[in-house]
């Protein structure tokens, strides 16, 4: 009997000396992998413009129908995003969301990103519908605006007017048009100041 007791207590003693497996959660947080999918964020370009162009592809891709996007046209004087439109209303119902990351994959501008933040619990359903105020980043990211992607945007005009403007440029040949393009690029970098 004594032998069995000693054996049992020996096991206890051995376990006592072993490294504790417990993560002391509120004080020490577990290291998440880079691919962990938590709370969403809408990123900004380095000049402060929002990357989201309000294309609604994330809304279409979402299997839980948790995302609501309502785009609006940019004001050319004070644009929110480099494109023609921006997400005027952007809501994610965190309680519907299953954090599958399909929205992140669907996003053509890589604006939507799932962070590693997981502490989201709250007391009401309404407070867990995240809007633009909680989704759009306050800080900028190192991404640069891809100027070759976005066409010039000076506000909405009737189609025949813009066609008339482009017609002489096509006749004058390559060098002139490239000079024009660089001019336009300069004009855009001026107007692309953070709103």
């Amino acid at each position, binding site marked *: 009997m004594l032998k069995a007791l000693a054996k049992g207590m020996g096991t206890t003693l051995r376990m006592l000396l072993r490294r504790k497996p*417990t993560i002391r*959660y509120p004080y020490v*947080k577990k290291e998440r992998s880079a691919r962990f999918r938590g709370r969403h964020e809408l990123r900004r370009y380095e000049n402060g413009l929002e990357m989201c162009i309000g294309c609604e592809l994330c809304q279409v891709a979402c299997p839980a129908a948790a995302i609501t996007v309502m785009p609006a046209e940019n004001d050319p004087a004070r644009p929110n995003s480099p494109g023609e439109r921006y997400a005027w209303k952007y809501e994610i119902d965190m309680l*519907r969301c299953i954090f599958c990351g399909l929205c992140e994959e669907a996003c053509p501008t890589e604006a939507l990103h799932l962070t590693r933040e*997981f502490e989201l*619990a*709250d007391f009401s*359903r309404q407070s867990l519908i995240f809007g633009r105020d909680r989704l759009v980043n306050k800080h900028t990211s190192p991404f640069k605006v891809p100027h070759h992607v976005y066409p010039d945007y000076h506000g909405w005009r009737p189609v025949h007017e813009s066609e008339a403007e482009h017609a002489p440029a096509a006749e004058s040949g390559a060098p002139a048009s490239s000079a024009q393009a660089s001019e336009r690029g300069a004009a855009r970098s001026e107007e692309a100041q953070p709103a």
Partner: protein
Amino acid sequence: MEMTNNQFFLTSVEKFVRWAQKSSIWPLTFGLACCAIEMMNLVSPRYDMAQFGAEVFRSTPRQADLMIVSGRLSNKMVPVIEQVYRQMPDPKWVVAMGACASSGGIFDNYAIVQGVDEVLPVDIYVPGCPPSPDAVIYAVLKLREAIASGQAHGGVMRA
């Protein structure tokens, strides 16, 4: 009514009772779906919820204070969950764990209740599919603070 001028004793007792309530929220073993697998992890040595007073999962509602609704609730299950909730002694709290329990999640169809708050008074919602055990521990800690400050009384069943 005579005591309105001197409530020192009563408030102290109430504070003590709240402290006692928040320090021993024993959860109920009530797994409904895949979230229950993460719920099991709560009492594993890795996430050890016993350090916050949620000592053991009780298999009978008579001994439980906290119902963690872990998983989708089907319409067929509603009478069962209502009975189990009634059998729990007051005060009692409900955590809606995961997307399905909180809002129905991706199962927006005829069979699934669109959020357990349609049948039970939910105290705290945890987003995630499934939420990681530390996300649930975060919710329980938040609930503990709410109990201590008197915001979460341990709801009474809707008539």
